[in-house]
């Protein structure tokens, strides 16, 4: 490949990333939110996902899989890094001061959503890492089982099985503490 062709290819990749940003920013933010349980931080990390993608576009190899799978892999890595860095902090000072972002137009709604995300995230901590990834990509990333299989390099059948086990376990975790209460619809 000549330097000009390389340059053109890189430019195409970057344009694709910019296009994915427009269509997938929300999904990536929701995916990270469900992984880390924090909406405001998820928005910042989602921004970082696309910046990282842009910076490493050169290393992206087009293997036929959609580019979004690669974007979600970066998002997954960032979410894991964030969780690790939070664990490393000896005293949760940052957490204490880190109040959920509140929408001035709907502060109550924002608080409720934050609390729901935290509850979901809390329950998902009891699942295996693979199960967490499957549900996060399905629910928040709005991916089909086939797309999740691409991201996680597994077969669609394996993904469906993990999904089924995960939903069953999550149901047990989320229903038990609320016996007598009606689940949110």
């Amino acid at each position: 490949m000549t330097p000009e062709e390389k340059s053109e290819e890189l430019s195409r990749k970057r344009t694709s990333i910019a296009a994915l940003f427009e269509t997938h920013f929300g999904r990536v933010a929701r995916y990270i939110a469900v992984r880390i349980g924090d909406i405001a931080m998820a928005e910042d990390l989602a921004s970082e996902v696309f910046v990282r993608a842009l910076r490493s576009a050169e290393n992206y190899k087009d293997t036929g899989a959609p580019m979004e799978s690669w974007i979600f892999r970066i998002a997954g890595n960032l979410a894991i890094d964030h969780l690790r860095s939070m664990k490393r902090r000896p005293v949760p000072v940052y957490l204490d001061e880190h109040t959920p972002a509140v929408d001035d137009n709907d502060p109550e709604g924002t608080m409720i959503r934050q609390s729901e995300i935290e509850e979901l995230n809390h329950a998902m901590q009891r699942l295996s890492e693979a199960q967490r990834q499957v549900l996060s990509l399905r629910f928040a990333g709005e991916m089909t089982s086939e797309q999740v299989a691409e991201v996680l390099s597994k077969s669609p059948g394996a993904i469906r099985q993990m999904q089924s086990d995960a939903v069953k376990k999550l149901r047990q975790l989320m229903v038990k503490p609320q016996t007598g209460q009606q689940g949110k619809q």
Partner: protein
Amino acid sequence: MSKDFEIILDECIDRILIKGATVEDCLASYPEKASELGPHLHLVTRANSSLSFTPSTAAKDRARQRLQAVKRELEQKERITRSSVPIRKRFAFSFRPVAVLAVFLIIATIMASSIGTVAASGSSLPGELLYPVKRATEQARLALELSQAGKAELHLSYAERRSEEISELVERGNTQKLEIALESLNESIEEASRSASAVQDSTALENLKSQLENSATRTIANLQTVATKAPEAKRSQTDAKVQTVSAAYGKAVEKVASRTKDPHTVAAPGIIQFWATNPPSGVERVKIEVGRIEAHLVAGPESQWVTVVSEPQIFDLVRLAETQKFLGEQKAKPGTYTRIKFEIIRATVVSGGKEIAVKLPSNSVTLVRPFTIEEGRTTRVFLDFDGEKSLLATGQAEFILSPNVHALVNRPAQDGLRPEKENPAKKPAETREALRPPVKMDMEGTIEEVASASFTVKGKSIIINSSTKMNRPLEKGEKARVEALLQSDNTIVAIKVEMENKLREKPTPTPATESKRGQPEAKPPQEQAKKPTTEHVKGNIESISPPQWTVKGREILLSKDTKIEGTPAVGFQAEVEGILQPDNKILATNIKITGSRPQPTPKLQDKPAGQQSTGQKKEAERRTPSASKAGEQGTRPSPSPSLSASPKPTPKPSPRPRDD
């Protein structure tokens, strides 16, 4: 759970999540499975409802602006790269007997350390033929070093070497040895800490603490850059290692700091002061309002953010060209602080007489910069805004502030606590400027002017002296990368100038020694004044406070290029050769320790004076490189805003349906 059920559940989840069907719709399609399927689908709906937020338009706008800024930056870098020819080519050997050659070269090292092959191994990288020689040479030097302080210094210099190797490995895309190199870096820091813990002499401990802090700043900044360039697969590992390295430095600084405390000092809080400095160009005013400034204290198992400045402060970055702005101070618990965090509330630019609101991609900036607060002493932290990099013009009358800030920390003031009413902001400019140590800075740009002893890049005049290294003579209109020292009087002295390679027909004379071709012979008076004047001072060393010494009443500045012959100590006689600076200080090029200590005085070494004088010359030769490193008080600016500044979440989601 049967396979059929998994498929049905999957299909129903698709219908609910992607096509917007209800649970009832799905159950109607599979009445025989309704009792089993229903509870699962209700849970899916509930989870889906929890995730029904959409990032706010403001958050997405900020992310878009950041993305566009990064895209522009990358494209600009590539344009520069494409227009340049590779600076160096490396040679590869194809034969195998590495071990045999290494043994031979180790012997060669011991027999005659100036053999060219050993020197060549200095630039080798992990996995390369000569790398074992490089490491063996380091071990040999360590074995020859007798003092613990010297060993600690050597380990620190090796830590920085490992950091440079890591950077080079990533640049070349060779990441197989990355983990090993990071491990070696960590080991060097731990070894430095171990050696430092055996040092008894308080002056040597003070010096080591300062070197540790400077080494930490440079290494962590470098590794943060590396982490962003590492391949995706290695990134999380690299990030984790950077954290480990940062923690190792933090512990080492803390350990040394705890031993430098004077047991007779009355326990009292230290003081942290924050100052803002350094302007941009091309605009008339840049007003920045900063909010809370905090520093992160690590004290054993305790760890906390300490608020230093709580009231918002406004300053004009352009005016910082002439002065520095005092932002605030606070009494603080003594200990090691590893990070600094501050908020930017708003920023405006005055350009062409018009005030324009500047967009802020992030409101929070976090800097990794370990420093120590000592009991009863004042530590000044300079938030050095790189105006050129911080303010991005994104279009017509549109600016983004992407703060590129380096934290520069001076050593704790020796004169104890500052009286409360003495406001440093009201002190004369000369006094305030004298507080700032020389700062290492990197610049890149087109050479606008070349004079006999200076040149101009981005409108800034840079002085060349006999220590300035250049890959070839300077030429107007060509691009150059400059490593320089920003002196306390704001003059810039070049350490290294790297010109982009271009095919040329014949070499031109070095501007430091001869006039440039086609330049008028008569120089403007200002340029004449900057012509380096060599100074020579001989006398007793009166004080050593890196990067500055006092010899016979004269202030001597040291840089990493300063050559030191002999073991320096207060009271020893020294012959200094150097370049006279505009502030009358001497930037030393060569220092020769000629005499022995006339009377017992505090010393730099951690050995008894008797032992020093007997093996002085031999030891001094071994110590020279690390001793000159002690002069590097200046800190390397952190590489980019996104690396040095970790954004704090502030965006606000709005309750809207999903519509990316």
